[in-house]
């Protein structure tokens, strides 16, 4: 519901990194979104396409990787994928409070052209 502000922060970080690495143009960005981050990929892509206008990010593709929610079962000593937000271990039924992934909101990499 606030993908616009996330797109804004994403653009700022991307521009900063592009400058740091002397990119003259960014063609794509890879972003990881955890299933628990409640960010809608379509809305983020749309907001980013508007916010990036007039910058070296304009027209860049957003590669969005969705990170599943994974929790650790301390009884089985195994990770398990959380489905429908149920943190109950499918093997032993114990409820886990140790969430290993699924909350990410990361800019992972940039692809583009190096300036002169």
């Amino acid at each position, binding site marked *: 519901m606030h993908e616009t502000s996330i797109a804004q922060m994403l653009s*700022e970080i991307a521009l900063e*990194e592009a400058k740091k690495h002397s990119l003259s143009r960014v063609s794509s960005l890879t972003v990881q979104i955890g299933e628990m981050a409640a960010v809608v990929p379509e809305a983020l892509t749309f907001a980013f396409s508007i916010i990036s206008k007039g910058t070296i990010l304009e027209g860049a593709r957003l590669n969005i990787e969705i990170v599943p929610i994974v929790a650790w079962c301390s009884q089985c000593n195994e990770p398990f994928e959380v489905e429908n*937000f149920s943190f109950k271990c499918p093997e032993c039924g114990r409820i886990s*409070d140790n969430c290993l992934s699924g909350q990410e909101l990361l800019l992972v*990499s*940039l*692809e*583009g052209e190096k300036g002169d």
Partner: protein
Amino acid sequence: MSDVSVTVVRNILEAQEKIAKINRALFDSKGVFVINLMSSPGAGKTSLLERTIAALKDCFRIIVIEGDIQSQEDALRIKRLGVEAVQINTGGACHLDANMIQSALEQVSLDGCDLLIVENVGNLVCPAEFELGEHKKVMILSVTEGDDKPLKYPLMFQKSSVLIINKIDLLPYVTCNVDKIKRVVRELNPQIDIFNVSCKTGEGVDKWLEWLKSQVSSFRK
């Protein structure tokens, strides 16, 4: 010109989270216990605050930050109880963020304050995603909203330390299975404390106050 790939790995919310950490450090240094109070619109956040303030204002110095899209209504309700309140109008934003809290803190002095309650914008989704620098997230679900809400909007239930089930005086009139709420919520979040409350009649409020008092006392300097 050459095509390159640059590895970044940066948290997109880092700017906000940095401010949240600054807020948290300030709260810790002043010995102020801070809760982020969240719920849907109309679940009873301000009513719970009124009950809480009435019971605790003589024991603790309390400050309230009120977040709403528009109006001063909530801050006025709180000020009437003789407690300092700052209203944030987000002007459309669906949640409070750490930056807004930092600005609001410029309007109050935390010296001698024991408890700061941030009443977030009424919304069962977005407020849970943004750290403000609080110590605990507390949420309210009212029985009129239905027992399916934890399954439909799991994030806030997952992140909160306390769930207050409000309006239990209305249980005879609505189809809401409180046991189902508790069962589902504990699968999302086994450590959550759950209190059944009616802010209207006062039933169950004492259990919540007990929890809050013990938290504040352990933070007090």
